């Protein structure tokens, strides 16, 4: 559905995108992750036909963004990272305006708009002026706006930024519904856990380069993220933690009231050997297991050392 090939973008002498390649199949929810300034918004505005790439191509549903911008626009709903609303319009008028701008006839809009408001939980705000809506509501309204022309692809640039946790959850619920509707969604964030439970794939961008891309599990494997071993002992956990620091393959040890977390770089055999040693030292081990590495760990691992602003 979305194919990006050798995309580069330079602002003056600054290279914001360096040879970006991406392929996002239809119906995928794609998490586009990277620290601020990595080039997420730049990539997304190019996809949204708002900016020209310096070189390379980007296709949406087979249409190249610079060659067929009008066809691309028909197929995408774009939500910018920063957006404003026309304050003097009411919620319904606002959606009517965008609906009309996509050449949707009045009669259809009359039916469609209540449904959209329902979808984003703004039905009770239909007659409210847009500027009196809260930030979260505006964000949802903007999402509804993206959907007026029933686009196949949604390009959402940090839709949850600046939202309080509650609004964030609401946003997430809506996105889940959109996923069920079969939309191809590309959603960016600089905070990974935000996307964790809803994305099918992630692409990690840093300094204008894709550093990793694919299913979350695949990325974890490919990058050989260090395991985190979680160890519980009946007593003397602090002492054990101190001894573990000097063991081979251990790069970090953290002890807290939930147990000892060991960053372990070795393979399965080394892991078994480590357990044997601990037992041989005589510690009463309660549990010893590999903790589930979460997306955040992956992210930190991938973008380690990069200046996250």
């Amino acid at each position: 559905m979305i194919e990006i090939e050798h995309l580069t973008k330079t602002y003056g002498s600054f290279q914001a995108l360096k040879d970006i390649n991406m392929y996002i199949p239809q119906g995928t929810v794609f998490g586009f992750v990277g620290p601020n300034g990595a080039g997420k918004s730049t990539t997304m505005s190019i996809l949204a036909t708002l900016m020209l790439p310096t070189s390379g191509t980007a296709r949406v549903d087979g249409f190249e963004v610079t060659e067929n911008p009008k066809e691309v626009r028909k197929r995408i709903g774009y939500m910018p990272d920063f957006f404003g609303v026309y304050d003097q319009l009411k919620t319904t008028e606002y959606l009517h305006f965008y609906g009309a701008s996509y050449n949707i006839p009045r009669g259809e809009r009359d039916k469609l708009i209540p449904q959209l408001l329902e979808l984003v939980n703004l039905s009770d705000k239909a007659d409210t002026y847009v500027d009196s809506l809260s930030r979260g509501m505006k964000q949802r309204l903007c999402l509804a706006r993206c959907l007026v022309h029933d686009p196949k692809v949604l390009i959402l640039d940090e839709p949850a930024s600046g939202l309080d946790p509650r609004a964030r959850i609401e946003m997430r619920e809506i996105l889940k519904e959109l996923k069920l509707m079969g939309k191809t969604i590309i959603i960016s964030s600089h905070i990974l856990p935000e996307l964790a439970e809803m994305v099918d794939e992630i692409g990690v961008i840093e300094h204008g380069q894709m550093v990793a891309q694919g299913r979350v599990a695949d990325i974890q494997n490919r990058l050989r993220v260090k395991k985190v071993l979680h160890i519980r002992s009946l007593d003397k956990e602090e002492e054990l933690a101190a001894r573990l620091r000097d063991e081979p393959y251990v790069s970090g040890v953290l002890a807290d009231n939930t147990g000892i977390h060991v960053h372990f770089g070795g393979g399965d055999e080394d892991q078994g050997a480590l357990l044997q040693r601990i037992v041989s030292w005589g510690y009463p081990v309660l549990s010893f297991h590999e903790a589930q590495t979460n997306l955040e760990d992956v992210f930190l691992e991938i973008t380690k050392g990069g200046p996250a602003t």
Partner: protein
Amino acid sequence: MNWTRKWINPVLDKEFRLRMRTPRSAISLMVYILVLGLIALGFIYVSMYLGNGGGQTRFNSGMGQIMFYVLSFAQLVLIAFMAPALTAGVISSEREKQTLSMLLTTQQSSSTIILSKLVSSLSFMALIVVATLPVYSIVFMYGGISLNQLVSLFLFYLFIMLMLGSLGVLFSTLLKRTMISVIVTYGVGLCIFLLTGLLYLFALSLVQRQNAQSVLQPDYSWVGYILGLNPAAALISLFEPSFSKQAFLVRGTTLNADAPIQLWQEFVVVYSVVIIVSLWISIRRIRPVRRRRKQAETDGTDGGATMEPVK
């Protein structure tokens, strides 16, 4: 409601709504008419009580004409102040309010967006100017002015608004910030209104010195063409055809010795080009321009320089 569908596109519809919903519009309308009305009243006061030691206290058509000119010039100046303020922000303010990027991803064409913005501003200005008609009714009380003159005056105003409006839209499209766009538009307006006049006076003095030395004198002088770029001069020539003759320093008093072109005609021709070029550039530059590819594709209306991401 077929005609609304045909003539009112969504952008225009939205512009009209937004325009009439801000109290600012009503206030500017009021202030404008107030200023013009005060000028009219001031003129009556000056001419009736101070002028000619009370000799000319009755209404007469000569005074009506003078008043018509005074009002027309006052209005011209008001328009020169109003047009940039109303148009120099139409695109850049959407950019600043971060609504432009979403508008640009809709199916509305670049020309629809630019022209709707212009038309909506022009309509509002036209409304204001038409609303000053009651002030002109004072002139009709005096007499001496034909309806024709009034109509051509208003058409001339419309043209001036179109010209300044197109320039405003152009700078609003090219420049990122509304403030800068407004300043630049006023600057260009100032050049059109004042610089052309000063340039004419300067050129005139040169030509006159030259003419005094030479024996053979041409039928007319090119300096008139400079004055034809000045809105005030064009306005005068609209009412006094002999003014163009003077401007071009036409020799002889025979009937067929006339100016090569009426100042207002030149004005309309020259600035029509300016209007068209301004709008054309605006339409091309509001969206990013596709760079010319090697295969030389020619199917697009979309073009323009790279646009910054809306931040």
